[in-house]
Structure formats: C-alpha cells, structure tokens
C-alpha cells in the first residue's frame, strides 16, 4: 500500500473555487500559488473535508537564483493521501511569503530556519527570529550567492 498523491490539477481546481487568484499554475505533481496567498491556501487545504491536509510534512526552500521556491509537502492522515503545494518568491533583497504557522504549528521552526538560512521572511509568524545562527549574522548561508 502506498499513499495516493493528489494531482496538482485537482488541487488547483479546488483552490480556484475557494481562493481565487491564488493559483499560478500546476502540473502533475504540484500546484503553484502566490506566496502572499499561502496563509489562506493553507487554511483551506487544512479545513476542507475532502483534502484534509492536517499534517505538514516539510517546508523546503530552494534558491533558483532568479527566484526562490517554497515547497510544502502535505498529507492527510485520515484520507491517506499526500499533496505538494509550491510557491515562487521573487526578489533577493527582502523576499516574503505568508506564514502558515497559524494553520500548522509544525511550520514554526521550519519557517524560522528558512528565514535564517535562506532569507525568506514570513509575514504573520509570531517569532520571526534566526534559529540556527545568531542574530546579527551577515547573510543567509543556503543562498547560492553565499560563499
């Protein structure tokens, strides 16, 4: 038995109904949403009884140089399926995305870590401080331009 993965298209259709303008594009595996809309998208995915993404597996941030990409691996324990939501964050000076910590408390440390190491600021996070490095550390080490 393996977990069923919800195709990006299905997620995109549902999201377009619930949170218009949030969806950017989709492919087989994932749906891309706008980073500002991430909080409402998360709330919908969490609360919707069919999707029921109660569990946030991981938030990953990737530096593609021209933009950052946030990857949310989600799953439902009750429905036994998984899904991937992604978000492109543009700008290198002060990239921001909406925090999902009010939906999934488990995002707390992960978002702080992404801010610390990748430099993406999450709006709405109650404690947006560096977690691994000390306050005042210059730069964000996981960025490709950090040496």
């Amino acid at each position, binding site marked *: 038995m393996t977990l069923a993965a919800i195709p990006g298209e299905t997620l995109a259709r549902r999201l377009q109904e619930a949170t218009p303008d949030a969806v950017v594009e989709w492919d087989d595996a994932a749906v891309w949403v706008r980073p500002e809309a991430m909080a409402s998208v998360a*709330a919908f995915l*969490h*609360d919707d009884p069919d999707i*029921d993404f*109660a*569990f946030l597996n991981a938030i990953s941030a990737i530096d593609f140089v021209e933009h950052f990409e946030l990857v949310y691996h989600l799953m439902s*324990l*009750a429905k036994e399926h998984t899904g991937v939501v992604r978000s492109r964050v543009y700008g290198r000076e002060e990239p921001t995305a909406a925090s999902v*910590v*009010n*939906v999934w*408390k488990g995002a707390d440390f992960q978002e702080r870590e992404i801010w610390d190491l990748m430099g993406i600021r999450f709006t709405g996070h109650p404690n947006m401080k560096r977690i691994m490095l000390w306050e005042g550390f210059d730069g964000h080490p996981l960025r490709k331009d950090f040496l």
Partner: protein
Amino acid sequence: MNGCHLDPQGALGGNPLFALIFNVAAYVLPCWLAFVIAGLVIMLILINAVLLGAAIVSWGERRLLGRFQNRVGPNRWGPFGALQPIADLAKLITKEDIIPYGADRLAFTAVPVIMVASLLVATAVIPFAKDVALVDLNVGVLFILAVSSLTSIAIFTAGWASNNRYALFGAGRAVAVLISYEVPVVLSLLGVVIVAGSMSLGDIVVAQAVPFFLVQPLAFFVFLAGMSAELNRTPFDVAEAESEIIAGYHTEYSGIKFALIQAAEFGGALFVSGLIATLFLAGWAGPVADWLGWLWFLIKTFIGIFLFVWIRSTFPRLRLDQIMTVCWKFLMPLSFINLAVVTLEVYFLRDASGALSTADLWIMTAINIPVAVVSIAFFGWIIRQKVRDSSRTTAAASPVVRGVSTIEVG
C-alpha cells in the same frame, strides 16, 4: 600514677581507650594536661577513622555500583582500585579552589566545615564494639538527632551562598526533605527507645536480645526510608539530582571544599549504616565472642551500605512533591502505627520492674511482622492513588489547533 584519677561515672570515664591514654600521659604530665592530651588523641583517632571509613565507602560504593551495573568500577589505582580515594583526594586538593563571583565568601567556606564537623560529632556516640564509644551519652539518640540536623542548615547555607540558581533549587529541596523526614525518623526511633528503655546507644544494643528489625519491622522500614532521604540517596535524591539540577547545593564547590562535602556524604552513609546496625541489627552483639564485637559491627554496617547501594543502583528518583507525599501520607502513619502498637505491647508485656524478657520480644515480633505487612500494603495502596495524582499547576498554553483530525484514536 601521680595521684590523677578518672571519674568512672564521667562522660569519658567509661571509655577504656581514653582511660589508658590518660593514665599513660598522667605519668609525666599534670592531670588537666593529661586529660586534654588524651581527649585530643582519641579525637584524632576517631576523626581519622571516620574519614578513612568515608574514603573506603566511596571506593566500595563505586566498585559495588559498578558490579551492579555489570561493569568494573574504578580499577586503576592499587589492587582492585583501592587507592582510588587517595588519587581523588590528591587531585581535589591540588585543584584550584574557586569561590564564585557574588558568593558569600564566609558562608560559602563555612559549609564544608560544618558538614564534616556535624558528622564527626555525631559519630562520637556510636559504640563500635563493646564499651568502645568515644562517649556513651545517656541521651545518645537525642544527641545524634540534634547534631545531624545541623546538616540541613549547612546545606541551605551552601545553596544560598553559592549565588547559583541550581544550588538554590537544590538547597530548597534538601531543606524541605530533611525537615519533613526528621519527623517520621524521630517517631520510629521513639519506638526503639520505648522498647529498649534507654536513650543510650550502648543500652539499646544490650536490650536487643532479639534484633529490633524483627521486633519493629515498621520502625526499621521507616528509619531506612527516612535515612535514605536524609542522606539524599535514591529514590529520594532530589537535592542533588544531577539530571535535573546539576549537583544541587554543591554545584559551585570545587577542590578541597568539594572533597570535604563528599567526605561528609560518604561518611554520612557510613554513619547511618552504623546507626542502623546499632539501633536495629544489635550493633556489636554477635553470635559468638564479645571481643569480636568490632567485626560484627563492621559486617552489619556493610549490610547497611550494601542495602543503600543496591537501592541506589535500581530505582529512579521520585519527584519532590511525591517525596513529600511519601513522607507525610505513608511514612508518618506507619511510624504512628508502630509507636502505638509498640507502646501497647510494652505496657502489657513488661514485668514489674518495667523490663522486657527475650520471650516478650519474640511475642512482639510475632505480632509486629503481620502488622507491618498489612499496614505497608494498606498505605501503599492508598499512596498509589495519591502519588499519581500530580495535577499541573497552571494551564498550558495550547498551540494553535485548527479542528481535530478525523483519524481514529486508540
């Protein structure tokens, strides 16, 4: 003899070793000087014996603990690592003596001295063999209780003077435990005193035609538990719980001060084991040969130490509130029951002169053992409910919870 003589009724008069030294010294010295010299010499002997004993206990405990834990224990210095305490001492003496910034220097320094002193003074009344106590005080039990309570003051001073929060935690805990446990300990000793009819430790040993751990199993149990709490030993070692508060009240001590505190602790273990041997295991009285009294005494002391190490190696530690519960709701009723039962038995069994025969003691044994089993089981059953009930004191800040997942729970 140049006319000096010792009052055999005096506090030190009954001690043959003291008398010997006094008489020898009196050949060449004036009487008062001979008295002082004899006192100093015998004190020196006692102090060194106790501190040496503490060293041996520290080695023995570590060896024994090692074997309980299926490992070797200290084995580098001397045969079976027996010189380990000397190596430890040499190391500790040569270490820098640190007094932390902001500490109360005088109080901080006084603590190890008070701890060792109170231990040594208390040891003075323990009869190591027949008639070989430094003094056989007629209020021996009271004296021991009074002097050993000094430790709690020393411990609290240590915690307060160290300027360290962990030390303060430890001190607060230690004082709470020591003062609480004093009560059941005293009550259990009361039973012993009633049966023996004397507070002198020598007389208590003589009175034990049947060892008191059989006559008063409840008192023995309460005393053992109470003393392991007063010694800060598992499962009551909250005061220096190393996994929680580093080392408790002696967190900041180093060098020779630490050595003295350790000596007081291991010496305390030795002292309490000796006390248990004296009060409950019939002290120096053995199956044969009174002149072998010191051997019986040592064997019985070893039994006590072995028991402490065995318990230490096996059990986890209770929480402070649970320790208090055990004290006030478990040991207290037990010691009261013991006191009441023993008092009644003595009242009905004693002869006209107020003395108890060996047969009477056996009768008491036959009654008291079932009483002990029943009451320990009963209060153990009650305590089981009480100790588990550890409600949280403030509401926890709940993380954000958005709806409950529908996964089945169970």
